[in-house]
């Protein structure tokens, strides 16, 4: 059973991370705790659905294997609120869209990875500018 002290210590951490926050980028949680930096992985797949969950959206893709079978993967992204603010909607990444995901596999070796770099097959980034896939222009700030 946890002592009162440890419970208190466990809670007292929300602002502490900021003490050492010189890092240029900052996701909602530590991706290094979830994904294995020694397991880079690059997949070409077809979107089956996108879960618009805060603080991290998840894109589901099906990847065809050389033997013809299909493996499903889940790809972790960032906050959907940012996409909404920039004019993107649930219709912006419809099922059937082909994407290339370059990232790292989860440490529990399930079929999950982070979308470190997600592009369309021709190299364009998702959710950028007005080109293709129903992506509207970035709204004025």
């Amino acid at each position, binding site marked *: 059973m*946890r002592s009162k002290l*440890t419970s208190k*210590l*466990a*809670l*007292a*951490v*929300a*602002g*502490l*991370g*900021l*003490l050492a926050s010189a*890092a*240029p*980028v900052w*996701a*909602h*949680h*530590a*991706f*290094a*705790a*979830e994904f*294995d*930096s020694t397991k880079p992985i690059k997949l070409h797949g077809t979107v089956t659905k996108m*879960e618009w969950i*805060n*603080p*991290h*959206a*998840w894109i589901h893709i099906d990847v065809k294997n050389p033997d013809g079978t299909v493996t499903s993967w*889940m790809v*972790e*992204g*960032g*906050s959907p*609120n*940012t*996409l909404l*603010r*920039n004019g993107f909607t649930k219709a912006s990444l419809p099922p059937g869209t082909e994407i290339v995901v370059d*990232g*790292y596999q*989860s*440490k*529990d070796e*399930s079929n*999950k990875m982070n*979308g*470190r*770099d*997600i592009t369309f097959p021709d190299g364009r*980034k*998702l*959710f*950028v500018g007005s080109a293709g896939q129903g992506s509207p222009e970035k*709204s*004025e*700030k």
Partner: protein
Amino acid sequence: MKPAWVLVTFALAAAGAVNGQPDLEGIWSNATITPLERPADLAGKQTFTAEEAAAYEKKVVDRNNADRRGANGDADVATAYNNFWYDRGTKAVGTRRTSLIVDPADGRIPPLTPEAQKRVQETRAWMQEHATDGPEGRSLGERCLLWATAGPPMLPGPYNNNFQIIQTRGRVVILNEMIHETRIIPLDGSPHLASNIRQWMGDSRGHWDGNTLVVDTTNFSGQYSFRGADRNLHLTERFTRVSPDALLYEFTVDDPTAFTKPWTAQIAVTRTKGPIFEYACHEGNYALTDILAGARAADKKALK
């Protein structure tokens, strides 16, 4: 000479007025690239010239560009995902100060007291030791309970740098997009909660000092530690409408058991387009489960 009330009326008319109070209502953004603390390489430099500010903005925007891949696997995975998920500021504050902290003059958070240093070190050590024991070992932010920049006090972060102010006759409401927190702040002169009632976000009470809304927050539980603060934190926030589309937001951190002296920051806040979307922060039972499952997989490997 005009009596004081005439001048006050002019000031209220100029800013618009809500229930006879200066109008702070709207949706506001505090996004900026100006850091809270002055970076070490800018020590002694309080303000930029216009050219220096432009160069610094370019440098920071480039440094923050998450589309650039990390130098190695660790750095790369830590960058998480593409830049389109981020919504950071791109401009330095209008004063061209090199830090949001205006007092002390060095632009840095004053040193923690020895007892606060000890507490912070103990917390860090506990975190490292128990980081993957269970969800309790993860930060309040990861657990979607509180967010370190959502406040009080409110600071810019990597995305969702937006808040909405709504004024009623006896209260002011501040809704922060991050992490969907709302403060309902009495303006009726009522006292703070009894000192034995402690809250993660403290107890906020407001009053007007001329055209400035002053929000005074005490009764922190200390379980949410802002930059090492403890339950004795006395936070004073000041909101002043300085133009139709800008607020000056200032806060002073006074916590004599945690910091060796008080410190104050100023942030220019600008009107932004709404609406504020519900953040509804929840990891969807994916990320936290993955972190803990990854640790259990590592435990099993270590036993083989």
